């Protein structure tokens, strides 16, 4: 019984630690780069804009692993507010395309998406700074000194102060017109299915486009420190899991070996009565397997219970879980199999001991 509890606890810790670290990494990555493009294609020329982008977009869309593609026309500008000049970035997008990357619709806490060429969305921090409301006018001055008047159609909160205070979201056409871009754009923004393979996908795009006038960046290049932190975390989690499994094997093996000593009389007498060595030893491997089966199954249940319990009790002040749980079924199955295999394997030592046990020694000792 004790041994089953031991395996259950070990497997539950393995599942808890493994899934928690994994979820933590994914949450971190998701919150860092989830609502932003993972690959950005921009101009490498002095002009800073790209023409014939429709061809590039259609070629990129053909590549595997690509989730969404959006084009943007972006430039800096400023808002004159009384005596102050507030620097801003006007970002021109097709709303639906931008939404698929930045999740703007869900971030809109007041108002509605921009529809006409005159409408724009501004962030929460900028709104508080300017003290404006829906329908108010927003006077923007371009670097060339051109004054443009927009109508505010809504306010967003993307959760990043630097974005909330500087991005003014407008129609692609609007941005192209006010900055005199014509039909050109400043960037093609791409999200991918496997964010950790963004560098590979970026290389693939580079190969397909084969264009010296463009520059391709991916999030991994720009977040090397985060990545090395995640890798460190993953390695420590792996070491913890290996240590846990090693302790389980040693613990089960010792307990079963003690069982052989305790049961040596019974094994001896069974051998005297004609039980074959293999049959006697299989009992211990079978016991290890059975103990592992029950222990590992209990461990999976306990581990998931711990994980959900942890998630329910660790929330931010507004009640949102700090870590988003990602339940990896493959990992659970692997942990369960490891528990089962380790326990069965741990039965081999006592099984070997029982083979060596001679009935005459047991009988002679009384």
């Amino acid at each position: 019984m004790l041994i089953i509890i031991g395996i259950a606890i070990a497997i539950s810790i393995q599942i808890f630690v493994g899934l928690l670290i994994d979820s933590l990494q994914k949450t971190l990555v998701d919150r860092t780069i989830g609502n932003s493009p993972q690959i950005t294609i921009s101009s490498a020329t002095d002009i800073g804009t790209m023409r014939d982008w429709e061809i590039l977009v259609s070629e990129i869309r053909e590549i595997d692993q690509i989730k969404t593609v959006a084009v943007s026309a972006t430039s800096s500008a400023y808002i004159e507010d009384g005596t102050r000049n507030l620097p801003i970035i006007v970002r021109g997008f097709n709303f639906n395309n931008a939404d698929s990357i930045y999740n703007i619709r869900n971030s809109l806490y007041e108002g509605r998406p921009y529809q006409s060429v005159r409408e724009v969305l501004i962030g929460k921090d900028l709104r508080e700074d300017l003290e404006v409301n829906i329908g108010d006018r927003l006077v923007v001055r371009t670097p060339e000194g051109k004054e443009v008047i927009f109508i505010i159609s809504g306010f967003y909160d993307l959760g990043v102060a630097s974005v909330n205070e500087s991005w003014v979201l407008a129609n692609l056409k609007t941005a192209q017109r006010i900055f005199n871009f014509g039909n050109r754009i400043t960037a093609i923004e791409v999200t991918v299915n496997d964010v950790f393979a963004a560098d590979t996908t970026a290389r693939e795009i580079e190969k397909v486009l084969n264009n010296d006038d463009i520059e391709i960046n991916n999030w991994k290049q720009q977040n090397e420190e985060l990545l090395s932190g995640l890798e460190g975390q993953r390695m420590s989690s792996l070491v913890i899991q290996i240590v846990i499994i090693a302790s389980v094997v040693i613990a089960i093996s010792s307990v079963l070996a003690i069982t052989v000593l305790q049961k040596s009389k019974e094994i001896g007498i069974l051998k005297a009565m004609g039980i074959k060595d293999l049959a006697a030893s299989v009992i211990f491997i079978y016991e290890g397997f059975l103990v592992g089966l029950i222990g590992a199954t209990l461990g999976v249940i306990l581990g998931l219970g711990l994980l959900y319990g942890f998630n329910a009790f660790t929330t931010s002040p507004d009640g949102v879980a700090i870590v988003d749980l990602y339940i990896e079924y493959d990992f659970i199955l692997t942990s369960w199999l490891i528990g089962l295999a380790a326990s069965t394997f741990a039965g081999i030592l006592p099984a070997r001991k029982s083979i060596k046990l001679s009935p005459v020694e047991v009988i002679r000792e009384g």
Partner: protein
Amino acid sequence: MSSIIELKNVDKIYTGAVDTQVLFDINLSFDSGSCNAIVGESGSGKSTLLNIMGTLDKPTSGEVIIDGIKTGDMNKNRLAGLRNETIGFVFQFHYLLPEFTAIENVLIPYLIRNNRTSKKIIEKANELFEMLGITKWKNSPVTKMSGGQQQRTAIARALINNPKILIADEPTGNLDTETTNKVCVIFREINQRFGTTFIVVTHDLQVAEKTDRIIEIIDGKIEKDVLK
């Protein structure tokens, strides 16, 4: 009468820091269906001799032939099979498995050979319980039984596979006089009813007196071999 066990020039030497020879050139033969006692002082080598006859131990040299089969060349598994089918053991300590009831213990030698019990073998077990006078306790856990009842259960276990030979090492060593007498009567009854060959090692002369032949061992050698 044909011999069921034959020992030819059997020596047994225990090797260690100092080699100790416990049996010296033993030549013995036991007739099928006979009832025999081996007596001797403690340390005379009688139990070693019994273990060699029961194939639990191997002689250093010499030959052990059981039911016409030379055991010297047999591997551990074949010996285990031979023991299961041909020999029943009763020891001074009953060695019943404490986790099981009396009848479950009795059925173990049968279950070693067959994976499941049959109606016939249950009947056989019941018959043995009846004969040994312990029917009332057949479903009791062995830990709840008296010493005499446990030893009788051990005898039933030794007989369940209808062995040709029953080897008993001090079977009455832990029993009082009355129970000892009962066990002797039972042995005799089994011997006559089933034709089982009995070889009993004992230091109790009263038990030895009840057999047909008494072999006395002194310092690993046969000192006397008296056929009554």
